[in-house]
C-alpha cells in the first residue's frame, strides 16, 4: 500500500520543485569543462579525413617543436604500452589511436597536449599524416558481398559480419505465413541519428604523483563501470582510480561508451603527472561519438481477413560502423529489439538481426533507445498501420482488436519476454477521447473531398526497461543490479547515494521523494549524491530508463531495512513489542493509542544517544537490488498533421501523449521528460540524419546540417496518463524517460502516411523532410 504523504514530506505523487535547480539557475553548475585544477593542460585529437585508408606515417616533429606543446601521442606510442586498442562494451575492440589503418572519417589518429587549448589547436594543425586511400564501404547491404572491402583485418573472421541473432520459432511462423489469408509487409529504415546532448563529451584526467591516485572527472553515465574498465585496461589498481561524474549536461546514451579522448587524456596525465583536460567540439561529438539507430528493418504480419493477427516475422540489417561499440547487455547483440511484438498478442513470431561493419563511426545504442526498443516500436507500429491500410480497417480498431487484454498479464510474448502489467485499451481510450478521434476522422473525410491533406497517426507502444535481472543481464560481465546506501543523521536528516547518475532526470529530487515516502523524512531533508565512485555504492549507471526500476527499488528496500531497525528502536523507546506498533509516514505509534508514538527524527536521535542493548548504533542501510524482471511502460500517442501542398511542409497540429509508467514519483518531472522525449522524436521523424556519401564523407557533421528543433518548430505537447503499477517493483513504478522517444516517431510517420494514404502512399522513410513530401505530392499529381 502506498500511503499518501503530506506536501511537507513530499513523498510519491508530489510535484515538488527540484532541489538541483538552485545551482543551475545561478550558473553555478559544475560540469566537466568547469573543472579547473592547478597546472591543468589541454589535449586535442587529430582525426582522419578518410573513411578507409592505410596509415603510412604520422609526423609529429613540427607539432612537438611548437612552444607550449608538452606531448604528442600517436598510436605507435600507445602500442608500446599495449593501449592502442581498447575493449568496447560489446566485447569487440576499438582503436584508441589508429595504427595500421583508419576505418571511419574523423577516427582518432594522434593526441596533442599543450599549455592552453589554442596552442593545442595550433599543434594539431601541424601534425602531418600520410594516408593511402582504400576502397570505402558505406552501404551495409554490400557489406557481406564477396568483393566487399575487408574492414577489420584484426579479426580472425575475415569478413564484415559481426553477428547473427535470432529468437522465436522460425518454422511455426513460416507455417502460419504459408496459410495466411492476409500478409502485410513494410520495409522501414530507421536512419542513423545522433543524440547530441547540449554538453559534449570530455574529461579532466588527474594523476597525482604525490598520492599515486588517478582522478578522472568525466561525462559518464556509468562511473563505476568506467572505473572498472580503466582498471582492467590500464592495469591501475582499482582502489587508486576515482571517477567523478559531476553535473552532466544531458546524456541520452551518448555518455555511456568509453571514447579514445578519455584514454588519451589519462595516458597523458599518467605520463606528465599533471591534470589533462580534453573537451571535444560539437563537430567531433557528431562525427565520432556514439550514434543511434541505423537499422534496416522488414516486418511482415500474417492475419485473417477480419484483422486478427496470427504471426509476425522480422528481419533486420544493423549497421554498426567500424567497431562494435554499441552498449547493450552481453546476451543481446541487438538489444531488446525482440520487444517488436509490441502491444499485440501474436501466437507465434520470429525475429532475426544481422550486424555488419561499415566505414562509419562506431556506436548504435543511444538517443533514448532503451536498447533498440525505439527501432522495434517504430517497426511494429508502422507495420500495424500498413496492415490496417491493406484491410481497409481503422488503425485504432485494428489495434484494439489485437491488444494483449488486461486479463492476460503477466504476459509471455512469443519472443520470450514476460510483460509485467498492461492495460493498453484504457490508455488508447484516454488518448482518443482527448484528441477527439471520431471528430477528426469526420474532418479528414470532409478535407479529402476538398483536396486538403490532413492525417491522424496513432502509436500504441509497449516498451521494456529497467535492465536487468542478473540471470540474463550483464555489461562486460558486470551484472546489471543497482544500489542505494542511506544514512540517517542524529538530527533526523538523511543522506543517500546510488549507483546511478542523473544527467538531468532530477534524481536529487526523486530519490529524496522515495526516501520521504518510505520513512516520512521530508524530501527537503534528504541529500542525494551520485557519481563519485569513491563514495557511491557500485552501480551500472543511468540509461535505458533503468534508474527508477533498479536504484529506485534499491532505495525503497534500503529505506525499509532502516524502517525495520527503526521499529526495534521505537519498540524499545515506547517499551512495547514490535508487533504492537503501526507505521504512518514519519512515525511509529502504538496500535489503538496514537498519542504513544515516536517520530523518525526521535528514533534517529536515539540511534546515537539511547541505543537499545544488542543493537548496533546508527541508522543506515545499503541495498543492492537485483530486479526480478524488467518493467514494461506503455502508452498511446496520437498525432494530427496538416500538409502544405505547396511546400511539402508538415505541420503538427496536435499531439496527445498518454503514458503509463505505473506509480509516479513526481508528476511534474515525468511530464518534463515526456516533453523532451517527444521533441527528440519530432526531430528524428522530420529533420535528422547522419549520412555518409559514397566516399565516406560524413554529411551532418555539424549543427549546420544536423538539425535540432528550436522553440519555434516544437509544437505544444498535451500529456495525460493511466496508471497500471508494476506488480514486482517495490512501489509499482516502471520508469518513463525513454517512452516518448520510443513511441513518438511512429505517431508522426503514421500521421503523414495517413494524410497521403488515399493517394496510394503506404510508407515514407524518416526523416520526412518537406523535400521528400513535396516529391511524393508531385508524383501523385497533387502538389499546389
Amino acid at each position, binding site marked *: 500500500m502506498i500511503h499518501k504523504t503530506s506536501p511537507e514530506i513530499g513523498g510519491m505523487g508530489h510535484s515538488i520543485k527540484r532541489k538541483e535547480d538552485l545551482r*543551475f539557475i545561478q550558473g553555478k553548475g559544475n560540469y566537466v569543462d*568547469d573543472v579547473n585544477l592547478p597546472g591543468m593542460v589541454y589535449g586535442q585529437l587529430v582525426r582522419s579525413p578518410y573513411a578507409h585508408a592505410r596509415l603510412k606515417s604520422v609526423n609529429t616533429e613540427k607539432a612537438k617543436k611548437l612552444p607550449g606543446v608538452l606531448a604528442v601521442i600517436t598510436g605507435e606510442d600507445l602500442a608500446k604500452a599495449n593501449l592502442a586498442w581498447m575493449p568496447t562494451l560489446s566485447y569487440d575492440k576499438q582503436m584508441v589511436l589508429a595504427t595500421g589503418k583508419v576505418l571511419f572519417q574523423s577516427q582518432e589518429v594522434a593526441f596533442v597536449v599543450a599549455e592552453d587549448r589554442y596552442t593545442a589547436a595550433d599543434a594539431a594543425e601541424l601534425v602531418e599524416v600520410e594516408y593511402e586511400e582504400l576502397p570505402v564501404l558505406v552501404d551495409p547491404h554490400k557489406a557481406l558481398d564477396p568483393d566487399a572491402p575487408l574492414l577489420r583485418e584484426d579479426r580472425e573472421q575475415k569478413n564484415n559480419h559481426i553477428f547473427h541473432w535470432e529468437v522465436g520459432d522460425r518454422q511455426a511462423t513460416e507455417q502460419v505465413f504459408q496459410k495466411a489469408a492476409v500478409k502485410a509487409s513494410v520495409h522501414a529504415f530507421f536512419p542513423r541519428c545522433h*543524440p547530441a546532448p*547540449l*554538453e559534449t563529451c570530455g574529461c579532466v584526467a588527474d594523476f597525482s604523483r604525490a598520492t599515486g591516485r588517478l582522478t578522472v572527472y568525466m561525462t559518464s553515465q556509468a562511473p563505476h563501470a568506467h572505473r572498472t574498465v580503466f582498471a582492467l585496461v590500464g592495469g591501475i589498481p582499482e582502489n587508486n582510480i576515482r571517477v567523478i561524474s559531476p553535473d552532466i549536461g544531458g546524456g541520452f546514451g551518448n555518455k555511456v561508451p568509453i571514447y579514445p579522448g578519455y584514454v588519451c587524456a589519462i595516458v597523458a596525465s599518467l605520463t606528465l603527472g599533471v591534470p589533462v583536460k580534453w573537451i571535444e567540439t560539437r*563537430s567531433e561529438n557528431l562525427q565520432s561519438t556514439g550514434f543511434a539507430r541505423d537499422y534496416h528493418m522488414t516486418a511482415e504480419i500474417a492475419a485473417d481477413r477480419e484483422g486478427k493477427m496470427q504471426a509476425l516475422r522480422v528481419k533486420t540489417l544493423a549497421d554498426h560502423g567500424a567497431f562494435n561499440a554499441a552498449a547493450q547487455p552481453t546476451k543481446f547483440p541487438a538489444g531488446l529489439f525482440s520487444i517488436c511484438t509490441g502491444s499485440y498478442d501474436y501466437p507465434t513470431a520470429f525475429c532475426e538481426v544481422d550486424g555488419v561493419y561499415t566505414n562509419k563511426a562506431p556506436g548504435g545504442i543511444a538517443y533514448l533507445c532503451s536498447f533498440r526498443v525505439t527501432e522495434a516500436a517504430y517497426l511494429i507500429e508502422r507495420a500495424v498501420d500498413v496492415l490496417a491500410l491493406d484491410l481497409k480497417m481503422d488503425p485504432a480498431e485494428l489495434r484494439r482488436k489485437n491488444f494483449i487484454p488486461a486479463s492476460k498479464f503477466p504476459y509471455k510474448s512469443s519472443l520470450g519476454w514476460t510483460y509485467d502489467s498492461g492495460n493498453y485499451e484504457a490508455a488508447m481510450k484516454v488518448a482518443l477521447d482527448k484528441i477527439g478521434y471520431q471528430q477528426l476522422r469526420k474532418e479528414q473525410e470532409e478535407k479529402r473531398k476538398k483536396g486538403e491533406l490532413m492525417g491522424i497517426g496513432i502509436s500504441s507502444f509497449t516498451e521494456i526497461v529497467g535492465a536487468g535481472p542478473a540471470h540474463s543481464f550483464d555489461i562486460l560481465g558486470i551484472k546489471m543490479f543497482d544500489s542505494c546506501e542511506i544514512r540517517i543523521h542524529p538530527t533526523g536528516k538523511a543522506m543517500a547515494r546510488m549507483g546511478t547518475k542523473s544527467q*538531468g*532526470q532530477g534524481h536529487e529530487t526523486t530519490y529524496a521523494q522515495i526516501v520521504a515516502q518510505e520513512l516520512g523524512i521530508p524530501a527537503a531533508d534528504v541529500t542525494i549524491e551520485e557519481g563519485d565512485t569513491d563514495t557511491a555504492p557500485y552501480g551500472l549507471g543511468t540509461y535505458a530508463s533503468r534508474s527508477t526500476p533498479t536504484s529506485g527499488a534499491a532505495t525503497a528496500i534500503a529505506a525499509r531495512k532502516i524502517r525495520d531497525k527503526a521499529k526495534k528502536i521505537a519498540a524499545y523507546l515506547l517499551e512495547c513489542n514490535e508487533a504492537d506498533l503501526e507505521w504512518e509516514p514519519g512515525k511509529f505509534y502504538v496500535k489503538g493509542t496514537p498519542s504513544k508514538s515516536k517520530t523518525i527524527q526521535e528514533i534517529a536521535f536515539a540511534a546515537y544517544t539511547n541505543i537499545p542493548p544488542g543493537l548496533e548504533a546508527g541508522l543506515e542501510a545499503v541495498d543492492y537490488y537485483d530486479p526480478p524482471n524488467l518493467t514494461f511502460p506503455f502508452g498511446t500517442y496520437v498525432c494530427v498533421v496538416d500538409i502544405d501542398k505547396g511546400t511539402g511542409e508538415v505541420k503538427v497540429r496536435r499531439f496527445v501523449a498518454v503514458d503509463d509508467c505505473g506509480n509516479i514519483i513526481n508528476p511534474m518531472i515525468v511530464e518534463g521528460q515526456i516533453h523532451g522525449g517527444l521533441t527528440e522524436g519530432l526531430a528524428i521523424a522530420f529533420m535528422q540524419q547522419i549520412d555518409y556519401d559514397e566516399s565516406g564523407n560524413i554529411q551532418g557533421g555539424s549543427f*549546420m546540417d544536423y538539425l535540432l528543433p528550436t522553440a519555434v518548430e516544437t509544437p*505544444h505537447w498535451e500529456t495525460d496518463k493511466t496508471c497500471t503499477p508494476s506488480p514486482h517493483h517495490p512501489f509499482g513504478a516502471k520508469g518513463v524517460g525513454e517512452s516518448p522517444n520510443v513511441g513518438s516517431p511512429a505517431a508522426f510517420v503514421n500521421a503523414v502516411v495517413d494524410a497521403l494514404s488515399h493517394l496510394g502512399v503506404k510508407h515514407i522513410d524518416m526523416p520526412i523532410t518537406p523535400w521528400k513530401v513535396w516529391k511524393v505530392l508531385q508524383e501523385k499529381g497533387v502538389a499546389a
Partner: protein
Amino acid sequence: MAKKQLVSVKVNGREREAAVEPRLLLVHFIRESLQLTGTHIGCDTSHCGACTVVLNGRTVKSCTMFAVQADGGEILTVEGLMKDGQLHPLQEGFRQEHGLQCGFCTPGMLMSSYALLHNNPNPSEEEIRRGISGNLCRCTGYQNIVGAVQYASAKMAETKTAEPEMAGGAK
C-alpha cells in the same frame, strides 16, 4: 603567437581586465580569464546559444566574438542576475515551472529571456518561442521554458521589476 592585448570590461557591475591573445574568443575570456563558468559552450557553429550573454545592452553569442571586440563594454552574464541574494523573477520562474532539466542551456535561456522581457515585457507565447529560438534545448521540449518566461513576465508586472536600463549596457 600574437602579442597580448589588455581587455577591460565591466562584468556584472564590476570592472575586470586581463591580457589576452587577440584571437581569444569572448566565451573563453568569460569562462577562463574571468572564471565565470555559468556561460557554456555547446557547439562550434554558433547555433546553440548556450554562450549567450548581454553585451552593451544586446544579447550576443559570445562564442562568435573575440574578447578584444568587447573591450570597453559592459557585460551581463547569468551570474549577474541575482541581486542582493534575491533570485531574478526569471530564475524563480525557471524553478517554479520546471523549465530546466540538465541545466546546460539554462544560462543562455535566462539571458535571452532577460533581453526579451526587457524589450517586450508582456510577450505572447509565439513571441516567447521566437525570442528563444536562438537557444537550443534537448531536455525540456521548450514548453516549460515558455511557462517560466510567462511566470517571470507576470511577476515582473506585478512587482514592477522592470528596469529602466537593461543591465549589461546602456540601451
